[in-house]
Every structure is written in C-alpha cells, then in structure tokens.
C-alpha cells in the first residue's frame, strides 16, 4: 500500500474544493494552483514524471500566473456571488447527477486487467520519437495553434486599431 497516490489525491481534491467554493476569485485561482500540483503528483504516481513536470511548468507556472494577472487587471470584487443560491443548487444537482451516473458506469464496467504496468522506463524516448514521426501532424498543428493564440491574444487586447502612417503623422 503506497500512500503517495492518496496524498496526491487529497491535495488535488482539496485544491479543487477551494477553487470552486471561494467567493474571492483570487483565492479560487490559488486553489486551482494547489489542485494542479496534486494532479502533477498523480501523474508522477502513474509512472509519467515528464508529463508531471510539464504540468507544473505550464499549468502552475504559466496558466495560473496568467489568471492571477487577469484577476488583478480586471480587479473584480463580486459581492453578488453568494446570494445566488438557486443557481448554486442547480449546479450542485447537475454535477451530483453526473457524478452518480459516472460512478454507476464505473461500477458496472469490466476492465481488462487491474495490474499496474511498470515496463515504461524508456517511454520518454518513445514519446519524443513518436511525436516527431508518427504523430508529427498533432505536433505541428499544436505549434500553429499556439502561434495563432499568441497573435490572436495581442490583436484582441490591443487598445484601438492602428492608425495609418500618414494619419498618425497628422495627429502628431
């Protein structure tokens, strides 16, 4: 019996609870960061240390920090978040129904084999080789998507459309 998975699971669920229950959105982002660290721990116990490191680097180091920037730039205090009991109840019922349904499916499913596989020591090399050979299309598509996201984000948040050069000189 190993406790590392249990610890990672507890961290994940506690962080997620914090992320969905806090009225202050900045605390919720911190909860998300804690939950993502727990998810990285689960990846580690699932014999994928490289993916775990990438999870921490990209999610905690990138996405969570970007979210914190967005919270600070939009400086939201949401006093109405708490009074909306009907919506919270509806959301809880929907999520609970989904959970019960999923748990029933999980209970009745028959999986092929419950044994852990421990034969993937060299899988990082396999990941790199496969990513550049067999799954090259996904790799290249992802790079184009990321480039488009960067350019698109800049275009979206730009304050006003750029003036033509002569109009700019006239304004100056």
């Amino acid at each position, binding site marked *: 019996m190993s406790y590392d998975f249990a610890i990672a699971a507890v961290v994940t669920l506690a962080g997620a609870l914090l*992320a969905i229950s806090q009225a202050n959105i900045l605390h919720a982002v911190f909860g998300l960061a804690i939950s993502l660290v727990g998810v990285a721990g689960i990846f580690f116990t699932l014999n994928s240390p490289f993916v775990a490191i990438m999870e921490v680097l990209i999610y905690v180091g990138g996405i969570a920090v970007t979210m914190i920037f967005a919270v600070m730039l939009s400086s939201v205090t949401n006093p109405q978040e708490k009074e909306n009991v009907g919506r919270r109840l509806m959301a809880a019922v929907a999520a609970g129904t989904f959970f019960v349904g999923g748990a029933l499916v999980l209970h009745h499913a028959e999986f092929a084999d419950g044994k852990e596989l421990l034969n993937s020591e060299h899988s990082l090399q396999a990941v790199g080789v496969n990513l550049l050979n067999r799954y090259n299309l996904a790799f290249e598509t992802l790079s184009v998507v990321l480039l488009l996201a960067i350019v698109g984000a800049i275009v979206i948040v730009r304050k006003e459309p750029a003036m033509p050069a002569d109009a700019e000189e006239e304004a100056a």
Partner: protein
Amino acid sequence: MTLEGTLLLALMLFCFGIYAVLARRNLIGILIGVELMLNAANINFLAFSHFIPTDPAVAKIIVLVVIGLAAAEAAIALAIILKLYRQRSSIDVDAMTLLEGTGAEEASDE
C-alpha cells in the same frame, strides 16, 4: 492505487469542474472549471495507459497536446476577459446580454 480509484478521482474532479462552470458568474471562475475538467480528462488518459497494456507513449503525447491546447485556450480567454472588462467594466456573465436583442432588461441595465 487501482484503475477504478484513479478513474473515480478523475470523475470527482470533473464534477467539481461542472459545478464551477454552472455556478460561477465570474468569467475567470468559469475558466477555472474548464481547466479542472481538462485535468480530469488527462488523469483518465494516463490512468488507462498505466493499467491497460497499450503503447505508453500515445497517452503521454495526448496529454501533452491537451496541455498545450489548454495554454492556448487560457491565453485567448484571458485576452477576451480583459477586453470585456475594458468595455463593460464587469466580467459578470449575467451582464453579457448584448446578443439577446433589444430587450427592456438591457435598456435598464445600461
């Protein structure tokens, strides 16, 4: 640690994500819910590749692609949030009724 336990954990994380998406009025809160759901899916991919004999590289490639897509999605979503905040001084989804047409509610809202 069993396959069922890992899948159950991912299911709980996914349900937390559903709750956040449905219950939050803040756009950043909704984005947090989406990220939780993506992570639940990633846990499922790695759990199946760990417990069921398949090519272990495939699940890792899928998870890395999903992480990259999540980064792109977060960048675009946060850009939209900043733009909305500049224009409307609010990121409350209940206030985003511009596409509903010319209702009386919007007139009183402005």
